[in-house]
């Protein structure tokens, strides 16, 4: 059915999953403050958080089945939003699951950490729904503020505090750019609604309007910070290294995906018509990001830093889909962030399983000979590395994700052959560091004074196993995911007056 967003009750229906998550998170916040901080309490709040996320996923599944659409308004009701929501919720579940074990080991007993994570996720869902620049801003801020706190969760660690402060300062800075960009775009078009911006940009032809061009540039910079595109990536390695490992995973997969989702919707719905004015800079951003991320990752000794740079490279790959901006690239985008989320959580799961108090065992060389003592863990890590590398079969779904991006780039109305070639060449560079991890684990002997490895238990183990199995199985039988992501292109709002159809400003392609 078509939801009329001007009717409050129908607006509530359209926003219900977000509201349920946020309300649930608030109840959990009260509950977590109710009892004294303890290990057991932290775990039960965590489990409740996971249950909440699963509930919301089920709700969203209903919405997908009902195939609602909506009239023009501040939020969108389409599969683009629902698919993104499910990916965010999967990321949240993964993070909470890893956090419960990690917090226990690092004597972090604040149960609120899980609640903050739910708030951040609610912010992401708002961002995915937003069809208005103000809602975009709201979503980004809800998400970011929660994550600033999460980065500093480990109060006893100086690095964690440094990461939080750095993330906060640079994040606030980026928000400034974003807000200024929004203001200028508003000034140029007289609206913050994405659909209307798209229409006006198309009708009036504001391409040569300086205010709009500067506004778009500032928006690119703002989002560039959030998703860590080179040259706006400087904060990422330090923050990723300092933050508690599960939160790093959340930032690398969830936060990046969410910012990209917002980025994507704004660009597709509002600025598609003036693609020539931003195509060039975006093209170069993608190329520079892929090159810088991959090249710098080569020289990293710390596995979290290495994955931080690799996540920058992945931001570059994802940006390719935005440069191409076709329906095929939208589904490639969704497929990619899904696959990337799985691989990232798997890899960070292994790191959590091996990490010990005080940042021990975070050097890649600490993984030497892991295979000889813990063959399954090493094999799982190899799968995650190959998935991030985008290797077929052994890297499972990771290959299909990269394949889809290359396909979308080549199949665009203006084929981006050069971009596709640059993408695959930089992927080969990434083999240098992903394979290094594999090589160290399988082909080096165990260090003599290496700490003993205990097999991962409980939630960590479930995350690693689930990620590995999903990556491998979906790598061979991806049909369900393909169908799912293919439907996830953003659909333009249904016009309230059918006699005057909208310009195709908000149509993709």
């Amino acid at each position: 059915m078509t939801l009329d967003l001007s009717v409050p009750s129908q607006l509530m229906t359209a926003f219900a999953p977000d509201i349920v998550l946020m309300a649930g998170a608030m109840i959990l916040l009260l509950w977590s403050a109710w009892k004294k901080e303890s290990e057991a309490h932290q775990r039960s709040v965590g489990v409740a958080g996971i249950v909440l996320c699963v509930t919301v996923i089920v709700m969203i599944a209903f919405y997908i089945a009902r195939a609602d659409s909506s009239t023009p308004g501040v939020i969108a009701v389409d599969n683009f939003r629902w698919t993104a929501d499910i990916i965010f919720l999967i990321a949240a579940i993964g993070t909470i699951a890893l956090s419960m074990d990690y917090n226990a080991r690092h004597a972090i007993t604040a149960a609120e950490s899980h609640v903050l994570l739910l708030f951040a996720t609610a912010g992401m869902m708002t961002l995915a729904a937003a069809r208005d620049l103000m809602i975009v801003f709201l979503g980004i801020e809800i998400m970011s503020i929660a994550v600033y706190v999460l980065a500093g969760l480990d109060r006893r660690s100086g690095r964690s505090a440094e990461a939080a402060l750095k993330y906060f300062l640079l994040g606030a800075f980026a928000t400034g750019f974003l807000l200024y960009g929004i203001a200028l775009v508003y000034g140029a078009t007289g609206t913050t609604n994405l659909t209307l911006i798209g229409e006006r940009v198309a009708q009036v032809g504001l391409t040569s309007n300086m205010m709009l061009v500067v506004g778009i540039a500032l928006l690119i910079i703002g989002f560039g910070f959030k998703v860590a595109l080179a040259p706006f990536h400087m904060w990422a390695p330090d923050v990723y290294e300092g933050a508690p490992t599960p939160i790093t995973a959340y930032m690398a997969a969830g936060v990046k995906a969410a910012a990209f989702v917002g980025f994507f919707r704004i660009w597709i719905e509002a600025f598609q018509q003036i693609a020539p004015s931003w195509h060039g800079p975006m093209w170069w951003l993608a190329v520079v990001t892929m090159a810088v991320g991959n090249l710098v990752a080569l020289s990293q000794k710390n596995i979290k830093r290495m994955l931080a740079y690799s996540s920058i490279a992945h931001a570059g790959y994802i940006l390719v889909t935005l440069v191409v901006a076709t329906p095929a690239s939208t589904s490639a985008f969704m497929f990619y962030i899904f696959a990337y989320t799985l691989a990232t959580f798997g890899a960070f799961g292994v790191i959590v399983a091996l990490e010990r108090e005080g940042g021990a065992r975070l050097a890649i060389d600490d993984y030497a000979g892991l295979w000889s003592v813990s063959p399954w863990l090493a094999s799982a890590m190899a799968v995650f590395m190959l998935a991030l590398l985008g290797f077929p079969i052994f890297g499972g779904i990771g290959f299909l994700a990269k394949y889809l991006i290359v396909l979308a780039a080549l199949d665009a109305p203006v084929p981006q052959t050069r971009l596709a070639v640059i993408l695959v060449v930089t992927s080969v560079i990434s083999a240098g560091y992903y394979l290094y991890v594999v090589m160290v684990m399988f082909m080096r002997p165990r260090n003599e004074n290496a700490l003993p490895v205990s097999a991962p238990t409980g939630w960590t183990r479930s995350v690693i196993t689930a990620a590995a199995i999903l990556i491998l199985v979906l790598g061979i039988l991806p049909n369900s995911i393909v169908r799912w992501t293919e439907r996830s292109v953003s659909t333009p709002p249904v016009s309230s007056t059918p006699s005057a159809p909208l310009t195709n400003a908000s149509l993709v392609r």
Partner: protein
Amino acid sequence: MQAFLSSIGYNSWVLPALLIIPVVGAALLLLMGQTTRQSPDDSSHSARMIAFGVLVLEFVVSLGLWWSFDPANAAWQASVDVSWIPQWGIRFTLGVDGIALMMILLTTFIMPLCVLGSWTSIKKKVGTYFALMLLLTSGMLGVFMARDLFLFYLMWEVMLVPMYFIIGIWGGERRLYASVKFFIYTMLPSLLMLVAILYLAIHAGNIAGTGPNFSYDNLLATSALTPTAALWLFGAFFAAFAVKVPMFPFHTWLPDAHVEAPTAGSVILAGIMLKMGTFGFLRFALPLFPGAAMNPTVRTIIVTLSVIGIIYGALVAMVQPDFKKLVAYSSVSHLGFVMLGIFALTLESLQGALMIMINHGISTGALFFLIGMIYERKHSRQIDSYGGIARVVPMFAALLTLVSLSSIGLPGLNGFVGEFLVLLGSFKVYPAFTIIATTGVIFAAAYLLWAIQRMLFNPLDKKENEHIPDLNWRELSLMAPLVAVIIWLGVYPAPVLRRMETASQTLVTHVQERALTERIAASTSPTGVQR
């Protein structure tokens, strides 16, 4: 035999079965390694037995293709076509022609021998080693069977990982360097080939008004590439295959990988995986881009590189103090002949190239096995650390001599047939190049005969060499089938040639006719752009 095979519906299940059997075996080995309560020695032994059993079964199953294959039929045989990812236009399509048939049989023939050859030399993590070998078997067979370019690409890359681990974990001293070099060298051009495959599939889909189309037969029927695009795409395929062959100057990964790999790894690399490259040229690069491949400039460059490879490989082999490295470089030389035969593109030269592909697999495989055997005894591959050991290990000496002679191309042994046909066929097209290439045969005789003379027949001047044990029963039974094939193919290669003839003839005709029509079309449209 044919009646029996058709009564069990052999053709309808053989190819998927060949892909699945090793995977099941590998899964069994990996799980067994985790759950077993046996002592390490016992579990290693059962891992060997399982791997050997699985691969013998694989060989027996594949052997039926020899009879069920109809040599006169140019169409795909034993075809299987299943929908896989319909949204992307990807199908699981398998089939064999005469060329693929021989490559599949070569693979299934060599793999069980590789298990025998690793029987005692692999001591750590035996189960995993054989599991990887089984996965590798599936990957290699998949490359030969695939009729869907997406599937082909998957299989092409799948081979890399097991081989990477086999070299990197069980290899020699410089194994880390060799394995990474092998991986990255192969991966870069393969990914470029992926881009080319996608371009091709999208192009074919656009013409048909559908999504991307990866079916080999469809792509073959679609001929509307501009000459420039065809040249670029050919270049991408060329890069992927030329590295695998390896053609001079893309060969530098080969000596490292071959020397550092464990014996069975070297045998698989030389015996089968190098053939992937030449097979790729035959199956994909030539038929899909006949205009580009038959472009006089391109052709001259490739033939020149092939001849340089022949001479260079032979000359470098001659000065190697390490026998394994000598054989590795000899591969560069032999594969140069194959490339010459392919790009001369006459029926004889192509048949010859295919024969060399088979013969090189057998002879070089046998050489690597023999080197592995003597290395296990003395832990040295240096030629001058031996000398006159023919008196100590007569069986070994006899076999090494025989296999070397076959590799040199002595008439009556297998190597002769292929090289003779290549030179005969190429002479019609490239007389000058062929004459230069012929000297490669002489060099081959020089480096191998000189090496076995120093190793086997000089005076026995080192005391520690006086008590090397001769080959045991396992090693002799490993060599027996290889020797039998060496003699069989040398004396009576006709059954093999007959099975490959139709496919070769079709290929030659197809490429030449298409190249001609494309050239005419290009010359009639002055801009050189056609659609």
